[in-house]
């Protein structure tokens, strides 16, 4: 038996020939992991007329690009993409496969994991390499992928491993890993693969597809004013929007605020929303469940405002204001306006 290869594959998402950031972020994380494993990073690029993107993938960290071009791959569809990915896994048996936790990645990854019969961990907030002992067999597995994520609604962080199945699969949200600068001196290989489809792969047709550009740019905003379940009304939420405007920032939200219909899901910060690292994060009426904190606790400065002095959010805050939003928000707005004069 040949020695198991330890290559790390990144599924590259693109639409209309434009690369999604999450793939590039994962290439950068993949490089780091490949350094530990002393292995290669492979990028899996599927689409129609997308060969030009391969060079950019190499510049961002890929050693090897698997290029799969076919007219049927122009628009993402579950079955043709699953076919290609599963066939390539069978052929090359990668050690790890990372997929962005986007609508496409969350559609594809479970399907592929099921086809390949392997484990999959969703929405990881960190990935590391480490050892694991299967206690029942007293067997040591070296250099597994630690798939780290907050779990079960509370404040626990679980480290998940797939000791027996390959590839070890995980999805990661956009913004969780940092994209590295393109290095135009990097060299890599491009290998083309010709897919073999079956009639049954085409039982679904896309009749129309309309995607718009993001209007909310949480990831790049220097200031974020975010509201949570403690925001009592739409009027009160509007105060947050005013403050964000005044500071040249964006409005964020915890899941509770999104579920309450106060603002659209695009604004959600946290493990299942966007991960942010702004200069200033104002958490207004946010209790601070781990899923939320996972998406904002690396902010440079955090101001938390909450009526409950024991709210977990205060544990990550640099400035703690115990008080009612209806009183505190107008004070903040007023103080800023006065300074601007």
């Amino acid at each position, binding site marked *: 038996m040949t020695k198991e290869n330890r290559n790390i594959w990144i599924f590259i998402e693109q639409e209309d020939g434009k690369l999604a950031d999450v793939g590039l972020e994962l290439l950068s994380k993949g490089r780091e992991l490949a350094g530990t494993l002393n292995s290669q990073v492979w990028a899996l690029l599927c689409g129609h007329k997308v060969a030009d993107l391969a060079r950019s993938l190499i510049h961002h960290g890929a050693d090897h690009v698997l290029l799969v071009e076919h007219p049927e791959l122009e628009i993402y569809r579950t079955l043709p993409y699953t076919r290609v990915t599963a066939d390539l896994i069978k052929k090359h048996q990668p050690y790890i496969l990372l997929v962005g936790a986007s609508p496409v990645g969350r559609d594809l990854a*479970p399907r592929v994991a099921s086809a390949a019969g392997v484990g999959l961990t969703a929405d990881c907030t960190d990935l590391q390499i480490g050892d694991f002992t299967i206690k029942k067999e007293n067997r040591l597995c070296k250099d597994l992928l630690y798939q780290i994520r907050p779990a*079960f609604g509370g404040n626990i962080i679980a*480290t998940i491993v797939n000791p027996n199945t390959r590839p070890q699969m995980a999805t990661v949200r956009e913004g969780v890993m940092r994209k590295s600068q393109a290095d135009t001196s990097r060299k890599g290989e491009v290998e083309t693969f010709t897919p073999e489809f079956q009639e049954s792969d085409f039982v679904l047709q896309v009749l129309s597809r309309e*995607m718009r550009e993001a209007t909310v740019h949480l990831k790049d905003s220097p200031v974020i004013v975010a509201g949570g379940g403690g925001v009592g009304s739409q009027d009160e939420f509007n105060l947050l929007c005013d403050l964000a405007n005044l500071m040249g920032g964006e409005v964020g939200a915890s899941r509770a605020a999104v579920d309450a219909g106060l603002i659209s899901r695009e604004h959600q910060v946290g493990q299942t929303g966007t991960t942010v690292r702004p200069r200033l994060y104002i958490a207004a009426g946010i209790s601070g469940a781990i899923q939320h904190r996972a998406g904002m606790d690396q902010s440079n*400065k955090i101001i938390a405002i909450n009526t409950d002095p024991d709210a977990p959010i205060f544990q990550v805050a640099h400035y*703690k204001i115990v008080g009612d939003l209806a009183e505190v928000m107008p004070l903040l707005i007023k*103080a800023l306006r006065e300074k601007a004069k």
Partner: protein
Amino acid sequence: MKRGRNKRLSTSLNILVQAVIFLEAHTMSYHSIVLVKQVPDTRQVSGDVMTNAGTMNRSALPAIFNPEDLNALEMALRAKERYGGTVTVITMGPPQAAEVLRESLYRGADKVCLLTDRKFAGADTQATSYSLMKAVEKVGQFDLIFCGRQAIDGDTAQVGPQVAEKLHIPQITYSEQIIELKDKEIVVQRAFDLGAEIVKCKLPCLLTVVGSANQPRPASVRKRIQYKLAAIPAEYPLLLETWPEFESEDKIEEYLEKCDLKIPVWTADDLNLDTARIGLAGSPTQVHKINYVVLEAAESKEIQPTPEGIQALIEELIREYVVG
């Protein structure tokens, strides 16, 4: 002459065939299966639920019908009302999960079924989807499977697609609306944060349904009365306490069976499955460790919610170039 008659015969036969096809297309009804889950209401996580040690007091969380599974059930019920057919609801979980099945009956499900067995415990999404796939196979005939997009306790959104893959049928994730069901095809609108897609797919297929799809109906008062006694055998002792006039659990069983109120319970043995693929043993993912996060409070300043306090804060932020 003979040839002419043959031709006429074949023409009328053709018309007859067309008519049958037409009738079939317009009397087509659809059998749906809805996969639902009972979850702890993680939206209720608050100070009470978290202990000082940073662990979670799970019992402080109420068990609820996973919200997007209610949207999935609603979509299935509307399809039934519009096109005819049946709705069967399946859940896997501990005996208490029978509650979401009664909730399904109160809303209009025709049949329900509970998968429960200690052997299913500790299942990850692979083992769960395998067990559910086996249950779907046991139900037999279906055109559509509906699931919520994801469950709020894990947020993985994996089980739906994994059931579809194991059944070798296509999936439509992020489904928001059934635009049309016709013959053996469905047209569905999918909703994403940043756009929408309309797809046409051959049946059978599996849909995962988003929360914006619909407003799930409340339980019907009439059905609540009709199905009040619907129960699994594990609940008979409790029923007997509430209704001593039944006298014995056997009599309850007899009565529920007569009235079609006995909720079927399937164990691993009922499903003709490979026990190596279920529960903890059938789960490729394993938990290496759990860290309870006890946050070291960041060096923090308490700011008074007064005009002076806030003004001083803003001044400090400007001085340190955090804002401005």
